[in-house]
């Protein structure tokens, strides 16, 4: 993956971000709900336990209640819980009773020692016999207390109900809940972080084949591979297969375009040849016109066919072609076609590994035209050199001819302009080289050769 990819990976529209955001929302929501649920369950449980304890104390209190002979209320003994006897220990009991039948209950007739001299003020509300009610009341030193109240009526004292009250400091209930909540938050936090980390790892591993696919595609685009190779997960493999099919189809289309271009050339040029030959036998202005127009038509056909072929090839991907053997084939052709000139055509330096990122026929078309020109203009010698760096390669063709004036040099690339009308050729060679090189992102330049003639430098993209 390239350096820029991680920054781009965070942008909206990134699969990674979408997957991560989705997982994150899900994790946070489930942890919050779980935390809230667990906490309420625990609070309820603890509160029930707390109330059950208070209820026990209440039962004990009722059991210890005694009535003396003078109708006086008293306790048979102290309650077993020592905190009832320690002042302000947080656990209290109290008995409210009416002195006479029908009178309102008098609070604090009997009280635990822990209440010292204070009396709990529990709101009065009618209760059935044996019914229990929970109240929140203020304690002796200002603390909130949770109080359990039950009303009883002793057989000895008909019509004089007693309110039996047991209360405990609310902090005794809230402290364990708070401590549980704290622990719960820590535990769920750790769980959440673990889940997020797992999700990140899962997304990275899950999406890695896409990164791999991207690298492979880049290799195809750069001409280092002709198709997407390698095993991909079953979700991605159909995509890869389809892509390979498209690549193959593309290559087929390019090949068909070449073939059709060749067929078109054949179909058009043979009638042109017949016309030109027939006209050449006549000495009339009409015959000259035909000859001229045939030459023009031939130039147009050559030029546009070369460009159409190249355009098809440039769009295709994964093309590569070794430069040296291609140039050597052309050198064989040159020494045959220009055999009358007795030229020496030779290498002066070569990078044997150089591979052109493009179609072999286009390389042949470019180098062929340059070599052909050099052979036409040379006096005795044409040299070819192959140089290059990591991204570009250059084919340098030198001849020892008489060279080109600067003004002509710029003009020769214009279609149909010939540097030297005496040297046979369509005049299109260089402009085709120029157009093809440009299509491939390369260039061609004419310089002065150390051998005295023209040096043509054709630079082209190199395949890795």
């Amino acid at each position, binding site marked *: 993956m390239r350096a820029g990819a991680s920054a781009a990976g965070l942008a909206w529209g990134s699969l990674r971000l979408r997957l991560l955001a989705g997982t994150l929302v899900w994790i946070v929501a489930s942890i919050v709900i779980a935390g809230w649920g667990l906490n309420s369950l625990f609070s309820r449980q603890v509160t029930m336990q707390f109330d059950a304890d208070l209820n026990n104390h209440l039962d004990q209190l009722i059991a210890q209640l005694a009535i003396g002979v003078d109708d006086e209320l008293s306790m048979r003994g102290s309650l077993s819980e020592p905190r009832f006897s320690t002042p302000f220990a947080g656990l209290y009991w109290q008995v409210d009773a009416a002195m006479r039948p029908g009178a309102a209950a008098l609070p604090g007739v009997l009280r635990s020692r822990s209440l010292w001299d204070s009396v709990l003020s529990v709101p009065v509300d009618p209760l059935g016999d044996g019914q229990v009610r929970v109240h929140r009341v203020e304690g002796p030193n200002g603390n909130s207390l949770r109080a359990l109240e039950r009303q009883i009526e002793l057989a000895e004292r008909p019509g004089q109900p007693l309110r039996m009250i047991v209360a405990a400091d609310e902090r005794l209930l809230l402290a364990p809940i708070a401590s549980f909540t704290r622990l719960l938050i820590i535990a769920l936090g750790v769980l959440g972080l673990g889940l997020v980390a797992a999700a990140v790892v899962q997304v990275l591993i899950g999406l890695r084949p896409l990164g791999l696919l991207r690298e492979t595609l880049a290799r195809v685009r750069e001409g280092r591979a002709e198709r997407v190779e390698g095993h991909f997960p079953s979700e991605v493999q159909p995509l890869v297969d389809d892509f390979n099919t498209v690549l193959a189809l593309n290559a087929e289309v390019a090949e068909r375009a070449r073939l059709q271009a060749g067929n078109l050339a*054949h179909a058009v040029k043979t009638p042109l040849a017949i016309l030109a030959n027939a006209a050449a036998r006549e000495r009339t202005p009409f015959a000259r016109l035909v000859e001229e127009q045939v030459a023009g038509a031939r130039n147009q056909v050559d030029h546009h066919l070369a460009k159409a072929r190249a355009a098809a090839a440039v769009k295709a991907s994964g093309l590569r072609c070794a430069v040296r053997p291609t140039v050597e084939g052309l050198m064989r052709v040159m020494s045959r076609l220009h055999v009358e000139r007795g030229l020496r055509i030779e290498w002066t330096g070569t990078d044997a590994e150089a591979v052109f990122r493009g179609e072999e026929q286009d390389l042949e078309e470019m180098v062929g035209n340059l070599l052909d020109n050099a052979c036409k203009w040379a006096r005795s010698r044409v040299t070819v050199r192959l140089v290059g760096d990591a991204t570009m390669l250059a084919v340098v063709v030198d001849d020892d001819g008489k060279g080109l004036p600067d003004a002509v040099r710029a003009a020769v690339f214009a279609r149909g302009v010939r540097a030297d009308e005496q040297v046979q050729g369509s005049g299109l060679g260089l402009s085709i080289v120029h157009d093809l090189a440009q299509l491939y992102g390369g260039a061609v330049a004419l310089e002065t050769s150390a051998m005295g003639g023209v040096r043509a430098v054709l630079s082209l993209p190199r395949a890795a």
Partner: protein
Amino acid sequence: MRILIVEDEPLLAAQVIQALAEADYAVDHADNGRDGCHLGNVETYDAVVLDLGLPLMDGLTVLRKWRADGRRMPVVILTARDNWHDKVVGIDAGADDYLAKPFHMEELLARVRALIRRAAGHASAELVCGAVVLDTRSSRVTVDGVVISLTSHEFKVLSFLMHRQGELVSRTALIEHIYAQDHDRDSNTIEVFIGRLRRKLPPGLIETVRGLGYRLTGPA
């Protein structure tokens, strides 16, 4: 000099045949690859003009078959497929020259002349034998700088002998190289042409090797 043209387009073939005949070549024509291949294998040609897009057998296959069978006659490919790739393929298949359509007939004639001359080992366009000079470009023969007039057949015989100076040329070889395939061949006419040539050329130039044929020898 006898030339085979393999070309399926009848009009173009007729034009080339006419031009070659006017340049005093004996011309055979095949309009498909299979016939062309057969003719090249059984007849003797000084040069072949070969199209590539041919019915029945394509030109490259024909050429490769000839070369595989050891047929060494010079071949110029005449085709509309003129990109450099096709030229590399053509030359590597054994072609000696390559000419793209449309072409100038003079260009084709010049290439054919040069091919025949080079195949016979002559570097210059002018063939010289003593006082006799034959300019292959203009089909003109001079003796001591004076142009002499020759009939078409006389020129064909002299041209063939000039290309093979010093070699013994049989009567059969002469017949094969100056008449097209469908021509009525009479070996006695060769003697007539030789007799006429001897009267127009310096004495002793054409030597008769009894029972074997003729030899053109310049002054030692």
